[in-house]
């Protein structure tokens, strides 16, 4: 149809819609006029008046039907019917509040879970960066590496032709000092064009103009939290690490940097930041030895797609590789990808398997909820048979009845989704509380924004339609397909309907068992973690995360500070031993990794720890071969390392490796001598197999951010105050971020899997309850249907035990079929689950047996009640039934 044609028809449609009564009256008049004329014609042909009238009506094929067709031709019926159906649906829902509340609650649970899952998925994978034209924002990577040397970045920026702007960013943990205290925060050291590349405007102030100026931009939340939203913040000086910066701007609330879920609190110019680390600043422009590798973000030129940009950059890159210092090494091609979700591929890969697990679990819960509501609707369909039949006889078409039933289901879904959104808010609150329980060093920075936004809202609306289809279509189809006349006569076989309910029940039992199994497996793996030996002493140990920096401390005086602190701590009453490490094992942030090789083998990524000489004795980690680090391992002495058994095995295939040499470092390897072999400890998680791990002396890899550990002979919590005041001492430059017993830290190390387990367990039990209620319903219905038969059996001498078995058997058949399906589904999920269970086989007989046993117990209970009722049936009453 041509557009102008549409224009002509609009007023006609509007007239039909709003002047409906008049149009209908005219239709009436028109058909009456037609009938009169036709009658006259037949009379003229010699019929009697009544005969002529009858013929005229017959010709018209039923006045009401013809009218209805004319109304349909006007295409306004659809809208009117819909409004009418809405009214009717609301009335029906109000009439049976019990059913409505139950069904809406089911759907609320199902959709609420999925709204949260979607919010998580959106946050990690889908959401574009909160900047203008986000579909032009890209991130550069090579293979799985998203870091580039600074000179490479400069070359891409200056020689590439496909980017409107190319920015560099180095996300790092940092400190921010306010008047009273110091905060551990996340910072980004960025190129001057960073904000220009993002294309966003500052909330107040301005952006950088030059990488060399000591200026800083605060994030909105840092400005609110640390400076109370001080309106005169611009021009004030703040200190981050060793450097003083003048605040020139505050970013708008929506922009939290490129390192989500870690939130950037402060942006500083790259060169100013690097100046704090003489080594780094020196090597910043050295291509062969990049001390600092940056993320590169690009805003594409308009109408340039990522693959064109990648082709251009790869040409630049090839040219760059031919220039001195030329390297002949083959490198993977550069990739240019549009940013969705969290930009850092590292956090994305971490989130991916969690996302998949939650999507699978969410879908299972949604299907269970919908099947449940579908079952309720089926049951209701039986109760409403008569009503529907009467309406069918009175001229309602099948499609019309179907539409009306679906509108009712849609209203239910709408209620459910609204409830789901409320639940979603509640679960976000729980999640935030869980995040608050995180160790302080991660909490300051992490924030997953899962709050309701328009995308989540749209998704919910989509869910609403999906629910309507999932739970409405089948029951509605069944309800209207019925043979109208046999129902009105009082007959009708509900047989196939019962069969349908049984099939859906088997599915429910199966799916809920799957959830229970998952929860059980997670639970088992938590217990295994609890029972697992970390490989180091946990009790009576206390740690303090400390940070010192220039101008109070240089590298030499900082090292001296830590060494003296250890000596002074050892002298404290109640303290047996003390040591320094960069990070304790099992920290939630994960261990540091570096490339390592024997020089002849190809390098691979191993975790490493940085420890002071007394660390192994303080933590009771046994030294198997060689010697511990000593005070003689100075920054200037030859580099040495300790290796774990697993690493020794991996590199040399033997345990006796003292005196061997390794090369560590990915870009510019350092050769070091192995001076000892240490027993394996857990590094990243309690569930993991032995890790290839090595240790470097604190003196040879000094950092201002370090963890002091002490062994106490008293309760570690009671020693906290003394330890804290000793470490702080007189110096104003010492900051303590976290002071906890090591045992607390170990507890925290599995909070993620504990959170996952809690979620799975709650959902699994919910699904169990839903399915059990469904089972009870079907068995009870079935027993009630067979009342007569059972009465007859009792009258003929069947014992109560036999009757009991008869009913129980019914429910148990369904349950067993469901259990088989559940086990099959779980076996199918095994590869996915294996990723989370670190070591535990996802096909764990004990967990399977316990979950199946639990289900059988619940099923017996659900069948027992109807069976008992049947058993006590009075045969006389039963036979007279109906």
């Amino acid at each position, binding site marked *: 149809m041509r557009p102008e*044609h549409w224009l*002509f*028809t609009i007023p*006609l*449609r509007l007239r*039909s819609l709003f002047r409906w009564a008049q149009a209908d009256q*005219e*239709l009436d*008049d*028109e*058909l009456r*006029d*037609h009938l009169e*004329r*036709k009658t006259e014609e037949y009379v003229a042909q010699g019929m009697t008046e009544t005969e002529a009238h009858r013929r005229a009506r017959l*010709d*018209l*094929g*039923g006045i009401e*039907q*013809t009218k209805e*067709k*004319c109304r*349909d*031709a*006007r*295409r306004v019926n659809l809208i009117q019917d819909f409004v009418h159906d809405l009214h009717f649906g609301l009335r029906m829902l109000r009439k049976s509040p019990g059913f409505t509340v139950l069904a809406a609650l089911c759907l609320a649970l199902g959709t609420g879970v999925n709204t949260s899952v979607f919010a998580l998925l959106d946050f990690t994978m889908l959401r574009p960066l909160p900047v203008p034209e986000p579909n032009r924002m890209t991130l550069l990577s090579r293979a799985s590496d998203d870091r580039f040397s600074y000179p490479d970045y400069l070359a891409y920026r200056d020689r590439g032709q496909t980017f409107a702007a190319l920015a560099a960013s180095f996300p790092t943990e940092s400190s921010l000092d306010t008047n009273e205290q110091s905060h551990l925060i996340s910072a980004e050291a960025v190129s001057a064009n960073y904000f220009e590349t993002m294309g966003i405007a500052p909330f107040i102030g301005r952006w950088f103009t030059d990488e060399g100026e000591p200026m800083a931009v605060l994030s909105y939340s840092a400005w609110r939290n640390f400076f109370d939203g001080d309106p005169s913040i611009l021009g004030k000086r703040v200190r981050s690490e060793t450097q003083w910066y003048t605040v020139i701007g505050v970013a708008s609330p929506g922009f939290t940097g490129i390192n989500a879920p870690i939130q950037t609190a402060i942006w500083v110019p790259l060169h100013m930041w690097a100046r704090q680390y003489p080594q780094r600043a020196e090597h910043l422009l050295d291509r062969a030895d990049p001390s600092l590798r940056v993320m590169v973000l690009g805003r594409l030129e308009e109408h340039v797609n990522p693959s064109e940009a990648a082709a251009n950059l790869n040409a630049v890159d090839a040219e760059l590789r031919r220039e001195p210092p030329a390297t002949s090494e083959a490198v993977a091609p550069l990739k240019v990808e549009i940013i969705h979700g969290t930009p850092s591929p590292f956090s994305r890969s971490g989130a991916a398997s969690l996302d998949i697990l939650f999507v699978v679990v969410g879908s299972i819960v949604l299907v269970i909820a919908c099947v449940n509501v579908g079952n309720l609707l089926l049951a209701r369909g039986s109760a409403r048979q008569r009503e529907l039949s009467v309406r069918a006889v009175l001229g309602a078409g099948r499609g019309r009845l179907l539409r009306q039933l679906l509108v009712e289901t849609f209203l239910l879904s709408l209620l459910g989704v609204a409830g789901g959104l409320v639940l979603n808010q509640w679960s976000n609150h729980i999640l935030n509380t869980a995040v608050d329980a995180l160790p302080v060093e991660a909490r300051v920075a992490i924030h997953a924004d899962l709050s309701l936004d328009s995308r989540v809202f749209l998704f919910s609306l989509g869910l609403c339609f999906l629910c309507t289809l999932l739970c409405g279509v089948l029951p509605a189809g069944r309800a209207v397909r019925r043979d109208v006349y046999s129902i009105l006569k009082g007959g009708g076989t509900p047989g196939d309907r019962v069969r349908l309910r049984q099939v859906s029940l088997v599915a429910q039992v199966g799916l809920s068992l799957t959830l229970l199994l998952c929860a059980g497996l997670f639970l088992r793996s938590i217990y295994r973690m609890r029972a697992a030996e970390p490989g180091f002493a946990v009790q009576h140990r206390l740690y303090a995360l400390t940070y010192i920096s220039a101008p109070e401390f240089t590298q030499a005086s900082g090292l001296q500070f830590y060494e003296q602190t250890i000596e002074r701590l050892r002298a404290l009453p109640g303290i047996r031993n003390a040591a320094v490490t960069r990070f304790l094992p099992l920290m939630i942030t994960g261990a540091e990794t570096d490339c390592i090789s024997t020089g002849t083998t190809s390098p691979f990524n191993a975790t490493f720890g940085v420890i002071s000489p007394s660390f192994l004795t303080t933590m009771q980690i046994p030294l198997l071969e060689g010697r511990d680090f000593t005070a003689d391992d100075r920054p200037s002495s030859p580099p040495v390392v300790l290796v774990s058994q697993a690493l020794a095995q991996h590199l040399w295939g033997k345990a006796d490796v003292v005196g061997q040499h390794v090369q560590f470092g990915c870009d510019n390897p350092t050769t070091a001598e192995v001076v000892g072999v240490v027993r394996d400890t857990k590094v990243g998680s309690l569930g993991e197999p032995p890790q290839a791990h090595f240790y470097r002396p604190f003196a040879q890899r000094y950092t201002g951010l370090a963890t002091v550990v002490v062994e106490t002979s008293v309760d570690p919590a009671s020693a906290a105050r003394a330890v804290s005041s000793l470490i702080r001492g007189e110096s104003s430059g010492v900051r303590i971020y976290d002071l906890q017993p090591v045992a607390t830290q170990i507890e925290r190390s599995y909070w993620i899997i504990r959170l996952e387990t809690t979620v799975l367990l709650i959902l699994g039990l919910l699904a169990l309850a839903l399915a059990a209620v469904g089972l009870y319903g079907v068995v009870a219905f079935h027993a009630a249907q067979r009342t007569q038969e059972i009465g007859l059996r009792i009258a003929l001498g069947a014992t109560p035990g036999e009757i009991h078995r008869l009913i129980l058997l019914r429910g148990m058949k369904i349950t067993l079929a469901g259990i088989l399906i559940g086990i099959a589904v779980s076996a199918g999920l095994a590869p996915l689950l294996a990723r989370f269970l670190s070591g535990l086989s996802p096909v764990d007989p004990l967990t399977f047996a316990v979950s199946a046993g639990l289900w059988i117990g619940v099923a017996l209970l659900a069948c027992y009640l109807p069976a008992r009722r049947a058993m006590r049936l009075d045969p006389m009453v039963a036979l007279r039934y109906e």
Partner: protein
Amino acid sequence: MSKPSDLVQGTLDMLLLKILALEPMNGFAVSQRLKQVSGDVLQVSDGSLYPALHKLEQEAWITAEWKTSEYGRRAKYYSLTRLGRRQLEKEADNWGRLSSAISRVITLKEA
């Protein structure tokens, strides 16, 4: 039963437009004329005539107004609009091409 089975889909619309193109008339007259001109070959029941007329009206191809007839009776008279005339030309054109193509095929001499 509602659609004339031996009438090619969409042809009814064209026939109605053509009849109304001759002169404005009411529904009853349309049904009479249809029967008359097609010589009882095209059986269009009254039951399908009115919905078809209403559909054409909704498409703005014909317009209706209430007039008093020759015998002092009020009746709804349909007449063709400018859009309707264009539509008729288009459909008649299509029909001409279709029917001549079909008759060319049908009149092929069998070997």
